[in-house]
């Protein structure tokens, strides 16, 4: 499984792997926001945590279809399915690779973009914490969506339609932590719930994703 992880990481970072794409998208989105809502500092300050969360979420979405599609097309997914590693483990590794190459970099980039959007000083820490805790859930849920649509030709759009509603609870609690934190309010409850979602998806999504993969590999 470590070998699989290493291979996926290398593939993602290599040219054509789409590694920088998600980060670039996050940046562009954040730049577009003031053009849409106006440059007033206090407006931006209030919406910054939410916008950054949505930006991170959408950027995660971009690279989801790559999780399984490439291996599916060239037959390596069939090989992985028959390998001694359980398919659930493959799903976890794939989700982890996605998080390391998408969720984690986005989390680290977010404070920089927070400067652009007038994020209040108290918000920087909570933004990073909420993203760090929440983006794994996004990768895991996304892996499930990718597994469902891996056999489809134009699966990308359907993938978004399926995955975005599933993202709602994570977004709600994640953005709450970031927003309340920025306002100096209490963040305990949403943070615990967010962590709960990440833990729950780690427990459940690999099984769901593996089930979907088995169906598609028949």
């Amino acid at each position, binding site marked *: 499984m470590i070998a699989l992880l290493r291979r996926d990481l290398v593939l993602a970072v290599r040219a054509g792997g789409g590694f920088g794409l998600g980060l670039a998208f996050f940046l562009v989105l954040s730049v577009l926001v003031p053009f849409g809502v106006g440059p007033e500092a206090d407006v931006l300050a209030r919406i910054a945590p939410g916008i950054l969360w949505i930006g991170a979420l959408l950027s995660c979405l971009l690279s989801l279809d790559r999780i399984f599609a490439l291996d599916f097309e060239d037959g390596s997914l069939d090989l992985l399915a028959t390998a001694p590693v359980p398919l659930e483990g493959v799903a976890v590794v794939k989700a982890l690779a996605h998080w390391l190459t998408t969720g984690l970099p986005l989390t680290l980039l977010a404070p920089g973009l927070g400067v652009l959007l007038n994020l209040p000083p108290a918000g920087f820490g909570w933004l990073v914490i909420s993203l760090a805790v929440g983006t794994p859930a996004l990768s895991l849920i996304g892996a*499930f969506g990718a597994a*469902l*649509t891996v*056999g*489809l030709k134009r*699966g990308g759009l*359907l993938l978004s*339609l*399926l995955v*975005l*509603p*599933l993202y*709602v*609870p994570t977004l*709600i*609690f994640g953005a*709450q932590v970031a927003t309340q934190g920025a306002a100096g309010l209490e963040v305990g*409850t*949403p943070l615990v*719930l967010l962590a709960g*979602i990440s833990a729950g998806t780690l427990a*459940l999504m690999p099984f*769901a994703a593996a*089930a*979907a993969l088995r*169906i*598609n590999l*028949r």
Partner: protein
Amino acid sequence: MSFWEFANPKRFMQLSSRLLPWVAGVSLACLLVGLIWGFFFTPEDYRQGSTVKIIYLHVPAALMAINAWLMMLVASLVWIIRRHHVSALAARAAAPVGLTFTVIALITGAIWGQPMWGTWWAWDPRLTSFLILALFYMGYIAMWEAVENGDTAADLTSVLCLVGSVFAILSRYAVLFWNQGLHQGASLSLDKEENVADVFYLPLLVCIAGFILMFLALVLLRTRTEIRARRLKALLNRERMA
């Protein structure tokens, strides 16, 4: 004669062709009686005025929007465990009906709330949850349309329905937290559980019965269509191969 006999498509077609006219007929009767009674022969609410009459559409539609999804969940489980095609096709048939009920619940809910909230849409927790449910329905329907192979589509949509159900429940609570905070009671939402006076209650029950039967009739009708579609596809494939 066990219930599972009707998992056989032929048996299902026979039974449903006999049942359908009756179910449809009684449903129509209930709807006419309930809606006419509610619309014309009930008083106004002292607080909400005549908008309370929207209850006769909003509450049954909302109830059935949820129940339709539950039926799809059960049908999906039956497919996963027992591989009865009729069950998978029934789930597929029910989805657009459930979506329509959800949209009706949303629109009537928004219209009903407008005089109280002053806007055409408010992110009230209940309405928001129904909006999310509508998205789940759409994703489910889109998945059926996207996959070519019937059995694969049935399998994938069943998994989606299962996972979706978990997230639907999770979202319900997340949305409640999002709009009200965990420790506040519901304040703005249209409280269906409010003590509905008897004079409103009886026509409402009749309308609910009408909606349940209408759902049943539509699912019977649409499942028959899906069974025929599947058979047609198989026959055309056979022709193509020959």
